[in-house]
């Protein structure tokens, strides 16, 4: 499987429209709301069946909140999260609580920290079998058989299923988390920073496993990450977030080779490259990420943007499609020529 920008031809599995999540800031004795943290502010994107979309951005940009709203781990303030379920389209954001459980078998999550996301008092059999138990699938023997299959699938030895998580290394624990996420045959897997807590030599094993499982089971991934090298490796399309908004979405190679948003350009340039011969002139962004409780007017990025003009300070840019499947929210997207990451000859 190589780069796939065939997203529009495949059927859409998840369609997120105008998603918002505002957290109220309360003060005083009466807990009066004095403002809102706009963690996710009008986010729109889609996911086609079998593809991988990465949400990237710095801490506090709202990527994790977005992924949680999609699973309805937290209720969004506004917007739609449309999931197609056997030809039927359901809005996860508003569906009745009674339907949620069956919907959640379609969408599962892989967590960042393989140490705190597994209960130390449960054996592998209990951990991986728990989703089956909760959803009332099969009897004890059938569940055990399923756990054996799942452990094999993620490259763990089924003989170990009576052991506890402490007996496993970080990489193995992440495999357990993946097995648990796959127990109910989900179609959408949301992976929130699945390799960032792992050692470098183990990261590659888990990334390979995720790619392999996707091919075998036809999974759709929403991959949340901050490490652009990892994102480049795993995704077919990338959405870059900055202070609650998606500023650019494009097929992976295109985004890395010719970014259209100044923030994407700065982000790409900031990544240290593992080659001392490429000590390039980096774009060092000045200042800090804007506060989502007190966002600047106009484009949120304008105080740090070296290309900002008067219009950027006043009006918020609308999303436009500058190339097929390449969406940018920048007033100057078509006039700027920005620097991407050159492919090294090696």
């Amino acid at each position, binding site marked *: *499987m*190589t*780069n796939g920008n065939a997203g529009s031809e495949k059927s859409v599995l998840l369609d997120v429209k105008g998603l918002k999540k505002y957290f109220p800031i309360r003060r005083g004795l009466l807990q009066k709301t004095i403002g809102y943290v706009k963690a996710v502010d009008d986010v729109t994107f889609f996911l086609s069946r079998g593809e991988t979309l990465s949400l990237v951005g*710095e*801490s506090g940009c709202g990527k994790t909140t977005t992924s949680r709203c999609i699973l309805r781990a937290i209720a969004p303030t506004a917007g739609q999260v449309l999931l197609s379920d056997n030809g039927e389209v359901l809005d996860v954001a508003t569906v009745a609580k009674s339907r949620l459980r069956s919907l959640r078998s379609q969408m599962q999550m892989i967590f960042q920290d393989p140490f705190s996301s597994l209960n130390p008092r449960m054996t592998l059999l209990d951990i991986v079998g728990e989703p089956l138990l909760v959803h009332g699938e099969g009897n004890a023997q059938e569940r055990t058989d399923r756990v054996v299959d799942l452990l094999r699938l993620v490259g763990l030895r089924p003989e170990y299923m009576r052991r506890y998580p402490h007996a496993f*290394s*970080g*990489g*193995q624990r992440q495999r357990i988390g993946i097995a648990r996420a796959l127990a109910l045959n989900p179609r959408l897997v949301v992976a929130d920073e699945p390799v960032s807590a792992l*050692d*470098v*030599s*183990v*990261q*590659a*094993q888990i*990334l*390979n496993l995720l*790619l392999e499982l996707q091919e075998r089971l036809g999974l759709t991934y929403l991959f949340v990450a*901050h490490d*652009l*090298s*990892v994102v*480049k*490796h*795993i*995704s*077919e399309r990338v959405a870059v977030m900055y202070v609650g908004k998606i500023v650019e979405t494009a097929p*992976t*190679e295109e985004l*890395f080779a010719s970014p259209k948003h100044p923030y994407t350009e*700065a*982000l*790409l*340039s*900031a*990544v*240290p*490259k*593992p*080659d*001392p*011969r*490429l*000590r390039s002139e*980096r774009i*060092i*962004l000045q200042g*800090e*990420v804007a506060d989502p409780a007190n966002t600047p007017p106009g484009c949120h990025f304008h105080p740090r943007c070296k290309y900002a003009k008067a219009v950027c300070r006043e009006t918020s840019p609308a999303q436009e499609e500058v190339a097929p499947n390449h969406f940018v929210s920048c007033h100057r997207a078509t006039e700027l020529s920005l620097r991407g*990451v*050159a*492919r*090294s000859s090696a």
Partner: protein
Amino acid sequence: MQNDTKPLLSVRNLRTSFFQDEGTTKAVDGASFDVFPGKTLGIVGESGCGKSVTAQSILRIVDHPGRIVEGEIILTRADASQTDLVKLKANSREIRSIRGGEIGLIFQEPMTSFSPVHTVGAQLIEAVLLHNAIGRQEARRRGIEALRSVGIPKPERRIDEYSFELSGGLRQRAMIAVALSCDPRLLIADEPTTALDVTTQAQILDLLRKIQQQRGMAIMLITHNLGVVAEMADDIVVMYLGRVVEQGKVDDIFHDPKHPYTKALLQSIPSIDSVPRVRLPTISGSIPHPFNRPTGCPFHPRCASFTPGRCDTEEPLLLAVGEGRKASCFLYQ
């Protein structure tokens, strides 16, 4: 490495072990390397390789039940005399004047390394007063200057704030200001940017480079991020399970690695300029638990060039494998 200048810090055959009820962990098991004035030495390795314990050993702040078992850490002082830090008592006056004075330290987690109940200024002024015979007012003035020199805006206001009032990037800058306040000749930076976002990381690395140019101080940069060392270091030491497996110039290590571990590590990292969605070469297995330390070469169970009967019985020595570089592998011995 260079022979023309004398090393500022010379670590020889350092062994630091932790003695616990469950057994003894050899956190650092015979590490040797040099840090040269004005240069950056990158110490690279994954978790458990002993890179942080090496830094703690140099500063003599190894936590109980750990202690230095063997080895020398020779610091060349400002007056060209030499001091073996291992021989000093961990709480002696001399090591306390070196720690924070001649050798500055930046920790990984700026949130937990600052006290939350004292202002940043109080902690900064404390460091200045400890190492200089000056008054409180003068110390405060120097503190503000130090904050300004690391690019903190409005330092005269920030000095009275608490660490939780600062953002991650500013907090790390304040940490650097504390470390630099006494003009160290060697700065040990233990994962200085790991907790930061990439754009903030770029700011901090840029700051460290500028400060190094201005002051000509040596930096010992400890990190697991190969991208960061490639950008920053002059020389690199690669560690695995407490041992130095390879050392050399940054360009040699990245473009002509000798040790199978270095080779495999470099191949296994996804790079921002590589082709997406192809299988990455991996290192099989995972880092062994310190109690299950393999016999012979510690890397042999995961090594692609493993020679049975040799790698699993004998320990390879760190020997020269070319101009200014060393590797500890039987492939070259």
